[in-house]
Structures are given as structure tokens and as C-alpha cells.
């Protein structure tokens, strides 16, 4: 895997943001989500667990990607 140190900070930020989004999806019902969130439904008490799970997985994926970018310079794969 080619290493690109410039991607570490954006990937970490993206990971944190996605995990926070996941927490919001778990904590807030669809009616209380910010209106720009996918799944926002005024007055709905439904919790978007699938959206939360997706955000968590993508967030962890971004953090793992960042972790690999911090590794030693790659030998040719």
C-alpha cells in the first residue's frame, strides 16, 4: 500500500466526524436529527440504527487507513 502522510490528518478528522455522526444517530430519534442528516423525519421517534452502524464502520475504516499511513515507508508490494 502506497503511503501518503498528507492523508493522515484528513483521514483522522473524517474518522472522528463519522464516529460522532454515528453517536448522534444512536442518541437522537429521526425527528431530532439535524435537518441536513439523511433520515431526518420531523416528529419521528425512530432511531436510525443502520445509519449509525454505517457511520461507525466508515469512521473506524478511516482511522485504520490513517493508522497505516503512519507506518514505515512502503517496500514495493
Amino acid at each position, binding site marked *: *500500500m502506497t*503511503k501518503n502522510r498528507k492523508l493522515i490528518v484528513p483521514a483522522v478528522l473524517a474518522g472522528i466526524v463519522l464516529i460522532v455522526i454515528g453517536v448522534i444517530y444512536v442518541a437522537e430519534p429521526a425527528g431530532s436529527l439535524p435537518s441536513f442528516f439523511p433520515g431526518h423525519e420531523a416528529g419521528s421517534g425512530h432511531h436510525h440504527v*443502520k*445509519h449509525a*452502524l*454505517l457511520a461507525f*464502520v*466508515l469512521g473506524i*475504516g478511516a482511522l*485504520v487507513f490513517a*493508522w*497505516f499511513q*503512519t*507506518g*514505515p515507508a*512502503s*517496500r*514495493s*508490494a
Partner: protein
Amino acid sequence: MHPISYFQAAVLGLLQGAAEPFPISSLGHGVILPRLAGWNIHQNDKFFLTFLVATHVATAIVLFLFFLKDWRRIFRGIGRSLRDREIRPDDSDARLGWLLVVGTIPAGAIGLLLEHPLRSLFASAASAAAFLMLNGVLLLVFERLRRRPPRPDDYLGDSDARIAKLSWRQAIGIGTAQAAALVPGISRSGITMGGGLLFGLSNEDAARYSFLLATPIIGAAGVLKLPELFGSDGDGVRGPALVGALCAAFTTYLAVKFLLKFFETNRLTPFGIYCLVAGFICTVLFAFGV
């Protein structure tokens, strides 16, 4: 009275277990069979979805246990790569592990977002039969367009090391294409095996990769819905679901064992022909009101 009888559960379990690893769409068969048999079971019935959870979890467990040795190596490889913060060029276990991860994420994401709408849209047995024909065409096209014909030395050496030569893009492509199997009639294993062939794997390696890729996605889908099985949706279904799960476990084991041997010397072609013929016959039958 159970909404699904023990006999129906056993038949559907045997079918699900066999059809999941075979490239013939277990979901499509699960939709078509009740219609042909005149059973009052429909794909979007809550009890049937709950029943499917049990059979899928059983299938995933059997797949996991069947390849347990490989999974141990893969987990160790992933652990090593995380520790070293790199995937060493000679560490095929680590590379295979991450190829499975990057192949699973897009399919899982699409599945989470589109499973329900797609199921609602293509719930009928008639559409499943039509897509079964399409699946047959795809299998035949995969064999036609495969990068290279089978060679005698295909099976020498470590299969996982050969699979690990797939590129990241190829793994993401195969993984994403799996999502097509959300449509009843399109086979997840058919798509992944076909993708493997297009990217230069042998039939046996493509089947192996398909089974490894199937385990996390089927397992996760099942585990996510387990609460439904143990909640009120599972009332009256748990007994038949257990029978169905045991039957599915049995036939999954036999099917995987058979297919790994079968693909040492054979191709996807017979399954393509089967899907075309079965899909066509069912389409005609449904058109005449069966």
C-alpha cells in the same frame, strides 16, 4: 399454529443451505419455491424474514467453521499488519484479510441502505424468476470473458496467496458487485466468483474467495437481525427456524465441500444453464398463473 410448518422449514432450510454457496441465488429460490409449492409464504412476511435470519446465521457459522484454519491465519495477518502499520509484501494472510475487509464494507453499506427498498420492489416470484435468467446469462458471460482459461498448474501452491494478488480496486469492485444479490434471483456467490474469474483467478480460487467474502456479510446481516428472532416477531417461528437452521447448516457444509472439489476441474457454465432454464420455466409457469 405456526405460520411456517416444520416440514416447510426443513425444505426451505435445506434449499437455503445448498443454494447459498451455489451460484444460483438462495434468495431467488426461497421466493420461487413457496409460490411453486402453493405455500402461503411471501418474501416480505415478517415471520419469513425472521426465519431467514436463523438459516443465514447457520450458513455463516458453517462457512466460518469450514474455513476456520484460514480465518485464524487471516486474523493473525490482520493483527500483524496493524502492529507493524503496514502490509508486508510477503504477508499474503494480512493482504487477504484486508482485501476481505475492503470488499465487505461497500456491500455492507449498500445492503444497510438498500436492502428494504430492493426487497419491496422485487418481492414477487415472477421477478425472481426473471432475475434468475439474468443471473444465468451473467454466469455464462463471466466464463466467456474470463481473463484466462483454466491451467493445470492453477492448483499448485497456496490458494490464499494467489487470491491475495487481487488489487485493492478489484477487491472493492467484487465486494460492491455483491450488493446486486439483494435482488432475489441474482446470486451473491455467482457475482463474486464471476468477478474473481474476470480478474484472473481460477474457478477454485474464485469459489474460495467467494466463500470467505460471504462469511462476514451473511454473518453480520444475520446477527444484526437476531433480535427479531428473539423478539415478538419470532413468536411461533423459533421452533421451525431452529429446524430450518440445522437443515441449512447441513446442506451448506455439503455444498461447500462439493463445490470446492467441483471447481477444481469445472466451470460456472452448468449453473448458468440451470439458472437460464429454471428461470425460463418458472417465468412461463407464473405467466400461466401457477
